[in-house]
């Protein structure tokens, strides 16, 4: 029978590979869009490259994102099979990994929802494209951190150890907020999001300059 740890390694490689590909494709997309918006016409060859890269990077990032999120769920299952439950429950480092993985997975799922709802149009505005890219890349940064924690769990260390040491990040003690801070975050963030939603909605309903609707849904789309 195949060692569950080997299967877990394979699923980790898969989700890490896909999600890094998503991040890399997003970077390529941002860079090529920036070239086409700001420097188009300076070099015909680079223009062609930017157009080509922009075309393949967008679907590639979306596909990799979906595949990566699915593979991460699979790796959670294989991970729970590969390690004894008693060790998982007792280890502070495992708790750190679960916490970081949960947050990064939330961000990736959010990016998929955004992309699924607004399709490739998300890239047609510089602000929305950068917001989407920031979401995916933040998820990638957290995923890199979670893989570094996994390296410590496997007893192999991590290439990032020196950097983590400089940044004062210790992956061994359990990462927790004080209880009051957790409660504050739990309440304040959803309320802030709701308020931001209301403000955005009011801005959409309010009449624009000259009495025209702001940018409400009544405005015909171009």
């Amino acid at each position, binding site marked *: 029978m195949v060692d569950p740890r080997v299967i877990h390694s394979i699923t980790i490689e898969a989700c890490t590979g896909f999600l890094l590909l998503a991040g890399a494709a997003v970077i390529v997309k941002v860079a090529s869009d920036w070239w086409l918006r700001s420097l188009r016409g300076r070099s015909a060859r680079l223009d062609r490259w930017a157009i080509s890269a922009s075309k393949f990077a967008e679907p590639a990032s979306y596909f990799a994102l979906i595949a990566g999120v699915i593979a991460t769920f699979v790796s959670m299952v294989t991970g729970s099979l590969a390690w004894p439950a008693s060790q998982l429950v*007792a280890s502070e480092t495992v708790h750190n990994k679960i916490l970081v993985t949960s947050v990064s997975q939330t961000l990736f799922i959010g990016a998929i929802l955004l992309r699924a709802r*607004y399709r490739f149009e998300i890239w047609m505005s510089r602000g929305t494209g950068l917001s989407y890219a920031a*979401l995916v890349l933040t998820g990638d940064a957290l995923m890199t951190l979670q893989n570094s924690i996994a390296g410590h769990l496997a007893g192999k260390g991590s290439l990032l150890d020196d950097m983590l*040491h400089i940044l004062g990040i210790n*992956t061994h003690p*359990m990462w*927790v907020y004080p209880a009051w801070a957790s409660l504050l975050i739990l309440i304040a963030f959803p309320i802030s999001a709701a308020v931001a939603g209301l403000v955005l909605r009011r801005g959409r309903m309010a009449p624009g300059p000259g009495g025209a609707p702001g940018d409400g849904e009544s405005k015909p*789309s171009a």
Partner: protein
Amino acid sequence: MRPALRRFGALALAVAAILLVVLAVRAPAAPVSVTVPFKPTPVADADLDGDPATGAWSDALSFLLPLENGAAAPYGTVTMYAKQDGTHLYLRVDGKVDVPWTSASGTHFWFGVLVSPASVTGHHQGGQDGVFFGDSLFTSAPPLFPVDTNGAKPPLVDPSQDDLGEMRAFGTSAPYDFTAEWKRKVDTGDPGDVAIVADGTTAYYLYATTDSGGGGSGGGALNHNAVTNDNVFRFEVPRPEELPSSSVRIVHEPPQGVTPGMQVYLTAVLTNATAAEVTWRNSTMTSGLGVPMTNLSQAVPQGGETGWVFAAYLPAQSSPTQVRYAINASGPLGFRVESYFYTVAEPPDAGITAEQQGTWILSLAASLSMAASVVAVLYLYVGRRLRREGT
């Protein structure tokens, strides 16, 4: 001539510079392959105290051992002393470290060794047997006793503590000296330990390292797992005829799982002995105290002879320590003294407490709430922005 001389001068300068670099930067020692010699003279338990000036180490094999921290000199290599008497393995390590061991919350470091059978290679693997000194995950304050661990990741404290010794650090500025001395039975009988076969051929891997940069340590810059050195150890075949002989025999197993406040009841089966005494001391006592053993008049067959069960109580210890004791059995045909030890420690940490678990669950919920809120705001923002730009 002048250009030729200039070229020669430049060449000589370059060669001198290279030589200077080569001589100034000591290359880390290569992995070692050693055979730990059989020596009938043991290191006394009292001398396994982290003081390099005491103890019968002159007949031990000494060699440079590279550490897994991969650090530059003087932190990347230690001097190890090793010998065995067929029953116990005696090890001592003299090394350098960049911080002193002040407290668990202040600057402190750990030194650890993992041993594995030849089938298990690598810096930190399952199936390895560990001993750690000074790791604040296991030890909250000096004295820095050895903590017997298994090969879990991270290492877990072995329920059966089978190492006796101590580590001490010396000096007033970096590099600080440290010495760790300890002994263990060649075969401890604990399935959680690697049972060593002293046959001169069976090979074992040994990995040693220090850490001062966090994770059971703090305040320094040494990370424990930069490189992997597959150090190979073998153990010379013992020569029992060189050991002191006596017709008096002692069969005894030290107690395990002793906690502070627990009185210890010792029993031993003695053959050809009519009287016995236990001499014991803990880590803070400067001399031993004697306790007579009582013959319980219970006969136990011992290989064709009759042994008798003797027993004694040792007093409870108020705080974590290591108790070293010797059973001195005497009879008409002579006497025999054998030394043992047991570790007095708080019960192993059961992992994460319910309170910590609750705090963590709250933190997890808060983090997810934060991430979900950010995604929700982005969702609304993107919708509004795209509509405003008419896409």
